[in-house]
């Protein structure tokens, strides 16, 4: 299974007459760091939404670790081991940084309503573990000094990192990052590249990355899939992609002969 940890086969969705994503296939191995690129409106985020259950695909199959997840609810897909971040950051703004992380941690340590209301010993232990795990993650992401701050008051870069940390808190097998570098300056982008490599190594998971910034994608990804108008126009290693005429055409327009 490790060759196809995340296995996407021929997934399609249409909104009315608009074929947003057609026959999208992808095989992400364990420990892989793959990229998904394409011009604006190519269907990258729609593809992510199909994988994470925000949309239900019209055709095709998605499986994680051999378990089918297409057509399931987003919460079930998260439990199956697929975590994501969002293009426009979606933190729980009114809640504290710690609570944002703890919400991710508690997915694997859920207790029932009776245990919660009666404060059983099992509940207390689970709550303590959630807190410890959250504190470890915050330390790892250098956010421990902002534990009690409201998430909405964090600076932009910290919000990005908090969102990634929250996704990691669910202990995923596959992490989907939707334009993590959006709105960052060059230094921050370099730091982000290092962070992404660090995450893959220390959490032993597979990462699928949507990105506009070519330097970042070419720099970290081992394998790239290019989408245009909802269809895959090229797949391959960064060097192959860089020289692919179809990709150049999609990004720069048709070559003049």
């Amino acid at each position, binding site marked *: 299974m490790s060759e196809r940890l995340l296995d996407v086969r021929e997934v399609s969705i249409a909104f009315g007459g608009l074929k947003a994503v057609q026959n999208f296939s992808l095989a992400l191995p364990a420990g892989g760091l793959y990229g998904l690129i394409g011009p604006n409106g190519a269907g990258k985020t729609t593809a992510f939404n199909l994988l994470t259950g925000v949309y239900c695909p019209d055709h095709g199959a998605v499986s994680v670790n051999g378990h089918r997840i297409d057509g399931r609810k987003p919460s079930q897909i998260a439990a199956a081991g697929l975590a994501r971040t969002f293009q426009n950051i979606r933190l729980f703004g009114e809640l504290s940084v710690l609570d944002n992380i703890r919400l991710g941690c508690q997915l694997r*340590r859920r*207790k029932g309503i009776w245990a*919660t209301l009666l404060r059983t010993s099992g509940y207390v232990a689970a709550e303590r573990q959630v807190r410890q795990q959250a504190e470890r993650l915050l330390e790892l992401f250098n956010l421990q000094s902002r534990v009690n701050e409201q998430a909405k008051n964090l600076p932009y870069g910290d919000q990005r990192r908090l969102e990634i940390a929250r996704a990691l808190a669910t202990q995923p097998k596959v992490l989907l990052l939707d334009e993590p570098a959006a709105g960052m300056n060059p230094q921050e982008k370099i730091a982000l590249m290092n962070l992404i490599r660090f995450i893959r190594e220390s959490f032993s998971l597979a990462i699928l990355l949507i990105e506009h910034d070519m330097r970042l994608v070419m720099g970290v990804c081992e394998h790239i899939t290019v989408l245009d108008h909802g269809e895959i126009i090229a797949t391959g290693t960064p060097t192959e992609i860089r020289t692919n005429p179809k990709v150049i055409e999609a990004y720069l327009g048709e070559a003049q002969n």
Partner: protein
Amino acid sequence: MAWPLLLAIIIATAMHFLLAPIIGGFGANLLMNCGIAIILATSLTVVNGFTGQFSIGHAGFMSLGGYTAAAIVYYGSYRLFGDFNFHGGVLSTKTFLANHGSMFTKGDALFIAGCLSGAIVAAAAGWIVGLPSLRLRGDYLAIVTLGFGEIVRVIIQGTPDQLDTTDPSIAILPFPKLLTHLGGALGFSGAPAYSTVFWVWFAVGITLAAILRLKQSSYGRALLSVREDEIAAASIGVPITKAKVRTFVFAAFFAGLAGGMYAMVVGTINAGELAFQKSFEIVIMVVLGGLGSVSGAAIAAVMLTLLPELLRDPPGLWPWGLVGAAILAGFILWLAPRKRGPLITLVSVCAGWELMRWIARREGIDLSDYRMVIYALTLIVVMIARPQGLFGVREIWDYLPRSWQFWNRKSAISVPTGAPA
């Protein structure tokens, strides 16, 4: 751990035996109404405040619970004792000095069974209504819950006449069938009045403990995340619809319990009085207290229950009003010595109150005629002054210095520092 239960029993017992005899029958009724309002407002906070769903049909659940409890106690009393008289022990006696019987009797058991059945019926209704409608959001959900409240009212007002001993069918009909004789538009009356300060405030204690424990847990955090951002909450594994339906059931259960207590204060309940206006009253308490603040909702519930009564014959501030204001001012000066706002508010409230009384006396106006106008004006002024409600999303003890919060050192919800919302 069962210490909240113990605390609830101690406080309720103290209020029942020490406070209730001092304040007299009218005062005790008011105290019970305050308690019932607290249960209603705090339970609605779970739906409207924590989960962020705008429900305005809470009185419908209260009505269901109240009628169920009243009917079970009324007809059950007939089947058990052959009459509709009071058969309670000391804890159920309003003037406890008159009763030297046992603490707990069959009548009390009947009353508790009635209230719990009412709560369960309301919770079941919450599940049935919630399952299809909680996929809706915002205004749409509000309309559905409003409709639910009206449906409950219309159905109850269409039930057959209440039966009494003169009606031979009361002895023949099977018990479940008896329970449908709810008196229609006339309302249901004559149920023995078991509600006392003890029972109501015991229920308040249990409700507050349950809701605060819910808020300070993973479970409550998941509900807050639904309020903040449903898509993000789903992406980290919070089952959105399930969470919403469960909060609905949870809140409906306590609304039903409050309804049962409410019905047995005098032994009368009328669905017409528990229409959407009552629902709005509860929503106002929640919003005034601050959406998501349990203590805020409880304080707003007490304020809004007492205010119309105080305005019947506004008492002077001297001496107790001023003593209270001085204590409050002391707290404000001590906790937030640099802030002027709260002090100015306090002084202007006191001045406004006396000014109102002075004008009324000079012009010979009977203030009780205008009490609902003043009540409404108060709401408007408070909402303009504090649009986020009394305490915003925080609790009253979050304003205490951190070193004081001995229970909060390792709390499940970490209270965000920085500027309050």
